């Protein structure tokens, strides 16, 4: 299926791959923010996941080990954030920014010996029957496991948040921390776990860049994907399925831009890479103009169980 010289099947298939890192990081950050914590360290956790995932995948030659270790590394780095902000009550914004700096520096340091090496290939899984459907099959059902995992993760998060007790408690803690505490919920513990979940998914997202999308290690290779993830959470009004929509819209913009260049329409790459932030600003303005306020009520507010 070719429209205006762009193969739609290839475009959408490439778009899903291109969006997956941002999608993974954003869905984790959405959970973190739903619990009332703002972790600006997504970029740092992604790049750490990227380098750790790459190192383990190269040394074992088994990509899945890379992803698992990336998740652990991302979660460990987020524990640092969690301890600082939840127990020592440090400022969340400053600590998150610091986490990004730490991640960028640390990954550059430990990734040095691995530059220029190729990572083992992450194999595609052709889903039986579904992948044989014309057009849709090659478009959606012949990807690697991580792409499927990211979509399943969105579905799971959406279900857990809206339909289960754990999700209800998570929302309650993010919405009104004092009230949740008064009812006897462990605000700090719940947030701690949410932060670790966000760290793990950001780690996997980072590893997907170094293992599947590029696939090699270069310093600073996440190139702002973590910031796009943060912007997406706001754009999505903290709703999981909208995170997916947003990720596919913006994560795929790079792909479209390449295609557009190929057929001779030159849109400056800077404008395209600006677009997620521009749209986020528009959404924020919309929120304050029309008063449709969906941000978690206790977002980024420190909590201490002294009362």
């Amino acid at each position, binding site marked *: 299926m070719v429209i205006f010289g762009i193969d739609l099947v290839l475009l959408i298939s490439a778009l899903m791959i291109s969006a997956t890192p941002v999608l993974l990081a954003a869905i984790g950050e959405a959970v973190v923010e739903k619990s009332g914590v703002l972790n600006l360290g997504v970029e740092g956790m992604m790049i750490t996941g990227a380098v750790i995932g790459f190192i383990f995948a190269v040394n074992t030659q088994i990509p899945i080990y890379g992803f698992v270790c990336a998740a652990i590394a991302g979660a460990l780095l987020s524990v640092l954030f969690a301890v600082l902000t939840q127990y020592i009550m440090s400022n969340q914004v400053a600590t998150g920014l610091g986490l990004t700096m730490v991640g960028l520096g640390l990954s550059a340091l430990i990734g040095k010996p691995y530059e220029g090496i190729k990572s083992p290939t992450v194999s595609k899984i052709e889903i039986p029957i579904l992948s044989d459907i014309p057009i849709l099959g090659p478009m959606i059902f012949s990807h690697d496991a991580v792409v499927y995992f990211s979509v399943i993760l969105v579905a799971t998060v959406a279900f857990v948040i809206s339909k289960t007790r754990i999700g209800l408690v998570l929302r*309650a803690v993010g919405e*009104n921390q004092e*009230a949740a505490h*008064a009812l*006897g919920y462990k605000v700090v513990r719940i947030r701690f776990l949410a932060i670790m979940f966000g760290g793990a998914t950001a780690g996997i997202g980072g590893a997907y860049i170094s293992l599947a999308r590029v696939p090699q290690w270069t310093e600073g290779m996440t190139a702002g994907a973590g910031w796009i993830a943060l912007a997406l959470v706001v754009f999505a009004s903290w709703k999981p399925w909208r995170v997916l929509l947003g990720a596919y819209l913006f994560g795929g913009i790079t792909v479209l831009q390449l295609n557009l260049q190929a057929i001779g329409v030159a849109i400056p790459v800077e404008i395209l890479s600006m677009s997620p932030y521009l749209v986020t600003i528009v959404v924020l303005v919309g929120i304050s103009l029309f008063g449709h306020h969906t941000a978690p009520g206790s977002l980024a507010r420190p909590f201490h169980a002294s009362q």
Partner: protein
Amino acid sequence: MAEVLLQMDGISKSFPGVKANDKVSFQINSGEIHALLGENGAGKSTLVKMIYGLMQPDSGSMKLGSENFRPSEPSKARQSGIAMVFQHFSLFDALNVAENIALGMENPPKMSDLSEKIETVSKSYGLPLDPKRLVGQLSAGERQRVEIIRCLLQNPKLLIMDEPTSVLTPNEVKTLFETLLRLKEEGKSILYISHKLEEIREICDFATILRNGEKVGSCIPRDTSAKQIGEMMVGKSFSSPSRKTRVFGEELLKVSNLSIRTKDFFGTSLSDINFSVRVGEIFGIGGVAGNGQDELLSALSGEEKTSPSTIKIFNQPIGKLAPDERRAIGMRAAPEERLGHAAAPAMTLIENTLITSHSEDVIDQWGIIKFDNVKEKTRNIVSEFDVRTPTLDNAAASLSGGNLQKFVIGREILQRPRVFVVNQPTWGVDAAAAAFIRQSILNLASNDSAVVVISQDLDELFEICDTFSVLTNGRMSKSHDIRSLSSEDVGLLMGGSDLDLKNRDKA
């Protein structure tokens, strides 16, 4: 003789620097409405938090029925049949009624079953609730219903209510009392915390009185006068404010044709407000909160600017002046919300004194703060208004509500404003502090100031005001000499029927 449900025996609890409870003992019988009384900071909340498992006593024991009881967390207390309705509602605005209720239950049923149950229970108690509605859209009374239903669904033996009526309209209070009496008939016990003595006399069977963390007495409220109970709470007799007859001077503050469109989604627009206050006069504005009180205060304080001539002081138009410019010419305001509006919560008392002081008093010609002066001023406020605080460097948020209110009012009154506007001067303040605040407002007026008191508390307005009008739905009634009004007249005014009174005045 009814059986004992909860026995408190020698309960003590200390925090760094404070003994919140000291060997408190009392018992609650089954089917009893038991009042826990005391001034702000007397230790009521701490005691209740221990029953509900939010805190654990340092020493002493509790018995529920015949068993030892020492809940380590709220869920344990809930399992034992204790339920609590919080003073500042423990609700989640962005969640719906059913979700809010599920969060306060130990083993909530499936959402669809729960919704059904909520509807049945809420209907049977005459507290209708729609489980699907977002709590953020409910009125104060409806929000409290959510809390009560949440408690009732657990079938508690003991229901704790912390200051349940402070945010309710008179009608909502009536409904609440009917519910409480019904629960009592069903054999449930209620621990009722309040400092509204008349309410306690109306509904409670027994009262335990705390002062400075100790139990100082108990009584049967029906057989004890409000004055006696009040004196037990305070530990000394206090006099109700005395008003001297004042002679009113010339017109000081004049508000004419004041209309404001509110920017707040939940606010009320003001339309065509007219009134004037003379030197030495206290002008009272009654009405249920949310009828434009906040908007009127911000127009008078200068937070909301209007066209210049709508507000005049001694015929000088000031509608366009900012709050600090109004303070400079002697017009001061004390808003209702103590924390965050009248005072900056995280700042010390000294800093909070600084922010509304005349700048020439506290800042030298180089722009440096004269901290010695500010400290002196703060010390003055604290001593003259009996603000109880460990040091002047304590954060405003660390003071109890009554103490902070005394501080905020004192801060403005000691600057001797010519015009003073205050919204809910004694909201959430205990009787002694309230009497003190009212007396200082009366004294201010005798010193040739004009005062505007906005309050929901009609008794308060009748106690101190000279002139009275009502704010309903952003419109203000004609003003009347308060001594000429009966309580029926006030009811008519609050219903918005100005005309009838006008006719009577003519007749």
